């Protein structure tokens, strides 16, 4: 665990040093989404019986926290291929799981900060927010899960170009397909089924239910836990295997 703490310490120094820029950049895209879809769609538009803007905010939380947690992948990549900094972790007497945990911790901080920013912005669009226990648990799970996925991808890709290809072909489609901004029930059957194999779908379902104070969809909650464990295991294996 000391190893995880050390790695987390490193990531946080850099994070603190850039905090101003980070907050600015984390605020911009949610703000644009809220303006375009929140105001743009108008007040009367309702989905699944709620105002559209209240419907989309949990989706925005899911998407934004996923993106910023997963974003550690590109930073690990630069650290690995460009600065060779990852070697310093790999040569230290620490286990692969502490490396993974340290990086996940950093990814979670980023994902959670972006969620917090959205929750602060929401009242500006006259959406009242209900922060409850399950909302927090779901955000923790979502950021854990996608930070772990970020570590896997960072360790598997061979170049920076592969990394951005993965973002373009997996992360971006997932951001939009997983019921983040619309009701999944509107999807054709086949896409509906595919969407349920994607982790972000379950995050947006759980986040939406908690945000709107509805009963948590248990199946999706279990799926989130399952994906988290799976990705964590995968990340540890990926770090072990990276010593080629």
């Amino acid at each position, binding site marked *: 665990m*000391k190893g995880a703490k*050390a790695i987390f*310490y*490193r990531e946080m120094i*850099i994070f603190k040093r850039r905090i101003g820029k980070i907050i600015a950049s984390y605020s911009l895209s949610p703000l644009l989404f809220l303006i375009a879809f929140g105001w743009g769609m108008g007040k009367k538009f309702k989905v699944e019986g709620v105002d559209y803007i209240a419907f989309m905010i949990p989706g925005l939380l899911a998407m934004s926290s996923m993106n910023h947690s997963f974003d550690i992948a590109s930073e690990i990549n630069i650290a690995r291929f460009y600065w*060779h*900094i990852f*070697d310093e972790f790999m040569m230290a*007497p*620490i286990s692969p799981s502490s490396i993974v945990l340290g990086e996940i911790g950093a990814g979670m901080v980023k994902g959670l900060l972006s969620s917090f920013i959205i929750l602060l912005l929401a009242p500006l669009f006259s959406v009242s927010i209900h922060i409850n226990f399950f909302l927090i648990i779901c955000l923790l799970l979502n950021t854990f899960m996608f930070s772990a996925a970020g570590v896997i991808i960072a360790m598997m890709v061979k170049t920076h170009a592969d990394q951005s290809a993965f973002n373009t072909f997996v992360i971006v489609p997932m951001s939009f397909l997983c019921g983040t901004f619309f009701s999944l029930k509107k999807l054709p059957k086949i896409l509906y089924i595919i969407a349920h194999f994607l982790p972000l779908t379950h995050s947006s379902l759980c986040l939406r239910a908690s945000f709107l104070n509805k009963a948590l969809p248990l199946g999706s909650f279990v799926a989130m836990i399952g994906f988290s464990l799976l990705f964590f295991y995968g990340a540890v294996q990926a770090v072990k295997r990276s010593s080629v």
Partner: protein
Amino acid sequence: MHTIESLSLTKKYGSLVAVNALDLQVKRGQIFGFLGPNGAGKTTTVRMLTGLTRPTSGQAVINSYDMVKEPVMAKKQIGVVSQYNNVDVDLTSVENLRLHGMLHSMEKKKREERIKELLHFAHLWKRKDELVRTFSGGMKRRLMIIRALLHSPQILFMDEPTVGLDPQTRRDIWALIRQIRESGCTIFMTTHYIEEAENLCDLVGIIDQGKLITRGVPNHLTESLGPYTLEIIEKGKSSYQFFKTAEEAYQKTNAGNHQQEFDIRSTNLEDLFIHLTGRSVLE
């Protein structure tokens, strides 16, 4: 007991054998120099000995801990200076060192004392709070070396510690390395500078195309070949002969013809390398 031992250590990349059945032993307190041309397999060997690369076959053993089977114990014994500058340019020198200390579970008070001591040792104290991004190549190198020493490892690996540095900085680093040896640390270093191997190392191993072609004390190796080298240059091509005394070499020149130029000097490891492989280290 040997502090570093490799037992038919092998690394293959597809059909390329980067390191071929390497058997090596380094005793405590020695500076072992691993000499070889570009692409010989030096870095690959160091990476296997330090746990960054998994051997295709064979074993890397550090203070009797197997690097593959007991990586955490084996890694506790070592400090590593890589060939590439891998200091964290987004951190200050103190933060770089602190991170390293934390990665090695050093106790905080001891860590901070040692950071102070080593920053003075490497003449970096004045710049301790500056981002490493602003450092020169030589300063980064010095920082990498003291970082590797922070947790007081018994064994220090250095992969081309002076590559790309100017002659003066190189000499400074040599002085640093000698001081480190004084403290009882075993040093495994790679180089493709003959001068460096001859000047610093108690023992050298010469590697070419993944194979260890000879090993021994630098003086003994050159003496066994003949302490004096006669270089015969004819039509722009050099050939070499080795002699026990300078007189013998000189006599040989009398038998030469007018198209030949001669040079008599003491034999160095480069001559040994050419003698063994037919090529120059620098080729």
